[in-house]
C-alpha cells in the first residue's frame, strides 16, 4: 500500500510522537508540533496514537491513494476536498483507489495533520519516524512525486465519525509557570502583562514573539549563563529581548535565561499560533 504525494505547500513532514531518550547524544525529541492533533487524527482512523502521520504547514498538500484508504485531517482546519468534493475536517474520510485528497489554506491555525489508517510506514531513525528539522534526523521533508508506504491496518476500527473542534479565540491564552531563570530578570512577571504577537520567523524550532503592548523584559543579570538543558515550552529570552517559545525541534541546551515555561498542554496551542496572531500569557502558580 502506498500513497503518492502530488503536491506540497511550504512544508510537509512525517511526524509521530518523537524520539525521547537521546539527550545524552545531543538529540532532542522532535515529533508533532501539535501532539494533541496528531493523536486525534490517529484515533479517528483507528490507529494507535503514536503512529506516523503527515504534518502539513499552511496547507497545499495533495495526495493520491493506490488502493482504498481511510484518512483524517485534524489540527489547522484546512479546507479539504476529495476529487474536488469538499469533505469535513476532523472526520473519517474514505478515499477510493486513484482519488486525490487536497488541502487548501486554513483560515486559522498553522499545521494540519493527515493520518492514514495503518500509519505512514517509513523507516524509523533512532526509534521514531519524526523529521527533526534542527538536526536533520529522520525522513526527508515530502516533495511532489514522493511515495509513502502505509503500514498494515490496526485491529481497532474507527469509533466515531467526526470530532468537532472549537474555533480558537482571537487572542490565544497560554498558561505558563515562572521559569528556572526567572530570577535573572528585573521583573519576570512582565511576561504576563499585555500581549505578544507571533513573528514571521516562526518554525518547528520555536515561536518568536514581538511586543504588541506592555513592558519589555529587562535582564537583571548581564553575566553569561553557562549552557544548560532547556525543556519543551521554555520561553527563552535572548539579548534582543524578543522571547522564543521552544517547540518540538528546539535545541536541547541553551545559553540564554528561561523566564517562564509554557504548560505541556498549551505547547500545542503555541504550535498552532500563526504569524500575526496575538497571545497572552497567564500565570499557572
Amino acid at each position, binding site marked *: 500500500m502506498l500513497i503518492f504525494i502530488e503536491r506540497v505547500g511550504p512544508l510537509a513532514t512525517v511526524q509521530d510522537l518523537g524520539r525521547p531518550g*537521546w539527550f*545524552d547524544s*545531543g538529540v532532542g525529541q522532535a515529533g508533532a508540533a501539535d501532539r494533541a492533533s496528531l493523536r486525534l487524527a490517529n484515533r479517528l482512523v483507528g490507529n494507535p496514537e503514536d503512529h506516523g502521520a503527515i504534518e502539513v504547514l499552511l496547507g497545499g498538500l495533495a495526495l493520491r491513494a493506490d488502493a482504498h484508504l481511510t484518512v483524517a485531517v485534524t489540527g489547522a482546519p484546512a479546507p479539504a476536498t476529495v476529487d474536488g468534493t469538499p469533505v469535513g475536517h476532523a472526520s473519517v474520510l474514505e478515499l477510493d483507489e486513484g482519488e486525490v485528497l487536497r488541502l487548501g489554506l486554513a483560515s486559522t491555525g498553522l499545521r494540519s495533520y493527515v493520518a492514514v489508517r495503518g500509519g505512514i510506514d517509513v523507516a524509523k531513525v*533512532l526509534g521514531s519516524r519524526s523529521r527533526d528539522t534542527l538536526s536533520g534526523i529522520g525522513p526527508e521533508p515530502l516533495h511532489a512525486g514522493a511515495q509513502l508506504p502505509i503500514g498494515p491496518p490496526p485491529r481497532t476500527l474507527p469509533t466515531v465519525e467526526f470530532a468537532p473542534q472549537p474555533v480558537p479565540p482571537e487572542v490565544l491564552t497560554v498558561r505558563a509557570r515562572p521559569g528556572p531563570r526567572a530570577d535573572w530578570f528585573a521583573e519576570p512577571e512582565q511576561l504576563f502583562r499585555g500581549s505578544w504577537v507571533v513573528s514571521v520567523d516562526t518554525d518547528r524550532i520555536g515561536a518568536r514573539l514581538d511586543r504588541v503592548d506592555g513592558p519589555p523584559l529587562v535582564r537583571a543579570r548581564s553575566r553569561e549563563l553557562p549552557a*544548560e538543558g532547556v525543556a*519543551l*515550552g521554555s520561553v527563552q529570552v535572548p539579548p534582543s529581548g524578543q522571547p522564543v517559545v521552544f517547540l518540538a525541534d528546539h*535545541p536541547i541546551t541553551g545559553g540564554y535565561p528561561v523566564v517562564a*515555561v509554557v504548560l505541556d498542554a498549551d505547547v500545542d496551542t503555541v504550535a498552532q499560533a500563526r504569524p500575526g496572531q496575538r497571545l497572552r500569557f497567564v500565570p*499557572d502558580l
Partner: protein
Amino acid sequence: MDIDWNSRIRSAGDRAMLVTLDDPRPVQRLASALRVHAIAGVQDVLPAAETVLVTMHSVSYETQVRRELVALLDRLDREPPQPDSPDVSRGTPPDTGVDDDIVEIPVRYDGVDLPEVARLLDLSVPEVIAAHTDTIWRCAFVGFAPGFGYLTSPDGRLTVPRRAQARTAIPPGAVALAGGYSAVYPRGTPGGWQLIGRTDLRMWVVDRDPPALVRAGSAIRFVELTSEE
C-alpha cells in the same frame, strides 16, 4: 548542616525540572546516578555545566519524581564522592555501574588557531599538544548538534576564549577548544571555537549503534598522529 535540596530543584514547566548544583562534579555524579538508578516517570536526563535537566513522561509524575530526586541527592550527598582522578586507567568510576571504556581519538594537530592558542596560554605549540593528549577528557554533556560533546579535563590548563568572530563553516572532524571545553565537530557547521587539529573518526553516524561516539559521561583520550601515519 543539611542542604535543602528542594530549593535546588527549580520547576521548568509542568513536565521538567532543573537541578541547580553550580559545580560540574556533583552534576556528573547526579547524572550518572540517574543513569544507574532510573527514577520511575523520568523520560530523559541532560547534564550540563552546573545543572541537570530532568524531563518526565507525564505532568502527573511531578510530585513523585521531585520526592525521589530529593532522596537521591540526599543519598549522594551522604556518600563520600568516589575518587575520579584523571589517571584512572581502568576508567570505571564506581558509582556509574557501567563499563567506561576510554574512547581514543587520533588527531593531526595542524589547526589554524593552534599558534594563537599557544600564544594565549603562553605555551609552545608542542606544550599545547602535550596538554591536550596527556589528560583523560570526560564528556560533561552533548549539545549544539547531535554528537557534539562538551569535554572537560581535570587540569583545566587549556582554557581559551571563543574566537571574537565565529567562522561560517567548520569542517567535520575539527578538534577545537573554547571556554575550558574541548570538542570535535561532528558535522560541518558554523562555529566560534579555536581549531587545533582534525580527526578522521566520525563522531556522529545516525545508523551506527550507538550513533554518537561520545556521550555524556564518556571518557576520551586524544592521541597525536604524526604526518607519516
